[in-house]
């Protein structure tokens, strides 16, 4: 047995070509098994976890980005709404001012008309006064003159007084 083992023991077992076919066969079997383990189990499992992790982070970041965009547009909408409200308010104030001005103008013109009417009326009254002036002047002057003459001790009949007054009125 010892001699047999000795003959079988080559100086370098690596160069014992009688074992090569066996080694090739089992190496190929092993490689195929490892390949199937790797592709069926290892890559789906570990690759899946790594991809999950990466996609979780990326999804979070992407969601954050999207939310940020939404926030920006929400802010813009908010500011827009405020600006709209302000311009609406300005418009209302402007409209109110126009309304007031219109009212003012109307009231002013009405007042003007009233004043004009009143002054016209007074003009008429003054004219009437002036129209009635001659008559009343004649009458008053007549009475007054007669009284004066009487006070002064003159005698003056109505006729003479009237004549004198008429003469003075003309003069």
């Amino acid at each position, binding site marked *: 047995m010892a001699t*047999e083992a000795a003959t*079988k*023991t*080559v*100086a*370098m*077992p*690596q*160069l*014992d070509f*009688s*074992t*090569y*076919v*066996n*080694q*090739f*066969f*089992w*190496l*190929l079997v*092993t*490689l195929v*098994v*490892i*390949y199937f*383990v*790797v*592709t069926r*189990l*290892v*890559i789906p*499992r*570990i*690759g*899946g*976890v*790594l991809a*999950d*992790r990466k996609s*979780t982070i990326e999804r979070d970041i992407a969601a954050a980005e999207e939310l940020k965009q939404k926030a920006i547009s929400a802010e813009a909408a908010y500011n827009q709404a405020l600006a709209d409200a302000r311009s609406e308010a300005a418009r209302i104030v402007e409209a109110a001012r126009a309304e007031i001005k219109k009212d003012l103008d109307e009231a002013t013109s009405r007042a003007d008309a009233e004043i004009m009417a009143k002054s016209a009326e007074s003009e008429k009254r003054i004219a009437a006064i002036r129209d009635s002036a001659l008559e009343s002047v004649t009458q008053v002057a007549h009475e007054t003159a007669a009284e004066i003459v009487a006070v002064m001790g003159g005698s003056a009949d109505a006729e003479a007084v009237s004549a004198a007054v008429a003469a003075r009125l003309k003069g």
Partner: protein
Amino acid sequence: MASSLTFHPMEQFTVSPLFGGHEVHWYTITNQTLWMAIGICCILLLLVIGARARALVPGRSQSAAEVFYSFVHNMVRDVTGEDALPYFPYVLTIFCFVFFANTLSLIPTSFAVTSHVAVTGLLAIIVFLSVTILGFVKNGAHFLELFWVKSAPWYVRPALAVIELISYFVRPVSHSIRLAGNMMAGHAVMEVFATFAALIVISPLVGVFVTPLSLAAITAMYALEVLVAVVQAYIFTILTCVYLKDALHPSH
């Protein structure tokens, strides 16, 4: 009583049937077969069972599996490029096999699968053939531009082409011998050192110095061999990636 040291550093590499008999047929289950199977079991343990939690925040075993996986993934991406990621499963298969064969061989009395040129040679030939075929399938005749160094002056290009062609065919040889040689040498040297440990029995006076020294040397060798096992697995795989890159982007 053995009165002298007898050195059989290569005996450990003998491929022998596991279940008796002496003939090694093509189907015989040998010690090598056993250790390849143990390698598969380790792959299952680390990369399948270890990662079974599939947690978003990994535990230790899952994290280890992820580090292992990402290491190869990043290697393929960084060395070969994004377009080589479809070949990642093949590269991972090769790395898994070589890595576990190398590291398992560190266990004493185990069998160093990758110390056999039959194994590393066939692996290298598989890589060589698939890369060459892939190069022609992907690039057609343009794959030959790999041997036509356009950056060189025109008159040296033919000479360079011959050199490039030779170096291309030498690739599988260096690829396989580098790995097998490294693994074989380490184990053989350890075995030689281990033989000296018997001196304490033969000659206690000499042995009292030599035996501890031999043990210390083997211990130190272990530190080195762990490094060699990992680095050689890495080199074998990264060279595969480099060859793959040449196949995908042959023009210099």
